[in-house]
């Protein structure tokens, strides 16, 4: 297992967001997290990346407990990429500097090598001509692709994607989806939180439905999205269909 969460609990005051959540992700597997707004998808991803501290349970990366307080969180984060819903690019840096910051400062690569690798990626995603631009001069879809590249150049073991398409206009979603499908083809292990059931169906090997702080139901996309066992899952999907997002 690349990632294994066992009985994870996370509370904000009296609000129990994750309540004994258990989820495993195998090598080269793509897992989509679905669930109502506020069900804890983002919180789970932040906990896995140690940006938030869990209140109980264990999270393991390649079998090693990363929630042990004796573990250095910086070294864990170096192995996990996280892409945010709102891109969070650094506005005072060019696209190229955004991408090469971690390779140069964290992974101690030479500036030339980091730049070359960054340009290769930008070429692949069709943004080579934007390498010198500042983020505010880019469209949402372009910013999101840069944010994904920024996480990828660190060669993470695991890539976490938090609603990477929800801030985008429909016509911009395609570029980001294509990129994620390509990554899947290369065997990248990913966990993605999403509201787009179509997206989940296309890229996920497994869909996990979060409800009341747990994974209520999980399985292949056709089963969970097409023929769910749990009544709560059916309700959730019915609401989604009403909203026209399936």
């Amino acid at each position, binding site marked *: 297992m690349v990632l294994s969460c066992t009985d994870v609990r996370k509370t904000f005051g009296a609000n129990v967001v994750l309540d004994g959540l258990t989820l495993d992700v195998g090598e080269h597997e793509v897992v989509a997290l679905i669930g109502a707004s506020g069900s804890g998808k983002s919180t789970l991803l932040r906990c896995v990346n140690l*940006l938030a501290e869990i209140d109980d349970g264990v999270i393991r990366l390649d079998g090693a407990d990363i929630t042990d307080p004796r573990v250095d969180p*910086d070294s864990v984060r*170096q192995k*996990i990429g996280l892409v*945010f819903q709102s891109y969070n690019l*650094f506005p*005072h840096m060019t696209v190229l500097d955004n991408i090469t910051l971690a390779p140069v*400062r*964290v992974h101690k690569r030479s500036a030339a090598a980091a730049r070359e690798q960054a340009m290769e990626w930008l070429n692949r995603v069709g943004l080579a001509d934007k390498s010198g631009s500042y983020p505010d001069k880019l469209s949402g879809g372009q910013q999101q692709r840069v944010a994904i590249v920024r996480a990828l150049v660190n060669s993470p073991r695991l890539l976490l994607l938090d609603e990477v398409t929800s801030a985008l206009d429909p016509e911009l979603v395609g570029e980001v989806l294509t990129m994620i499908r390509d990554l899947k083809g290369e065997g990248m292990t990913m966990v993605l939180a999403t509201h787009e059931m179509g997206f989940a169906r296309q890229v996920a090997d497994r869909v996990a439905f979060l409800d009341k702080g747990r994974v209520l139901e999980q399985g292949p996309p056709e089963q969970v999205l097409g023929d769910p066992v749990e009544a709560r899952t059916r309700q959730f999907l019915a609401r989604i269909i009403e909203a026209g997002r399936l």
Partner: protein
Amino acid sequence: MSPTPPYRLSDVQQDRISFRRRKAVRSVLLAALSTAIVGTLLGVLVTGAPGWDRVRQSFFDPRIAREWLPEILEGLWLNVRMLVFCAIAALALGLLIAVLRTLRGPVFFPVRALATLYTYSFRGLPLIIVIYLMAFGVPGLRLQGTPSVTVLGGAAIVITYGAYLAEVFRAGIESVHPSQIAAARSLGLTYRQSMRFVVLPQAVRRVAPPLLNDTVALQKDVGLISLAGPIDAIRAAQIGVAQTANFTPYVVAGVLFVLLALPLIGITDWVTLRAARRQNAGT
């Protein structure tokens, strides 16, 4: 790439352009006319006022101005050197204090507490008291290796302004959205690296206008070290006033201070304007 054929503006657009040009010419003419009227009125009012001759004699005597200019300029050189040193030192101190105040964790509690106490007390303490305490009080201790009064006075300015600048820096640091730190940490950057490469560059850019404003204020207050004795521009002017029984040397020193401040004020305005434009450009 093939050269694109020259674009021909439509008649409507050409009409707009010529209208805007006519309007611009008319605005310039109007501005010139109203300036001339206001200027003449002011001139007549000031020179026609009773006592203007006496004012001119005791404040604007060209002979005395010429006589004392070299000495005042020499004093000003001290102000300039103090200004450069004090501004750099106060900015560095302010930044350091602001960063210390962001440190989390129990180990840093005393550091945080001291930094907070410092910014609270020195923002309330009048600069003159700090200068007197440093320049007259410290030499009174007769410690070995006590620096000169000039250095002590400079230190007083640095300590006082450091407290103000620390608060400006802190406001800048706090204005950087937490998601920026989350993004930096998620890439594996340490807390220090996140501060240095992500938070501080954005914070400093945002508070550049108020920082520069405080630097302009510091530039003026550097003249207060004359209270401690060193012969700066103000002290030189004071000597001139005492010897000639005429206030022209003060006016000369004042004009020189304004001239000295002009570039920095200009830069401040420009940076502020640019920052405002940036803000508007961003979403």
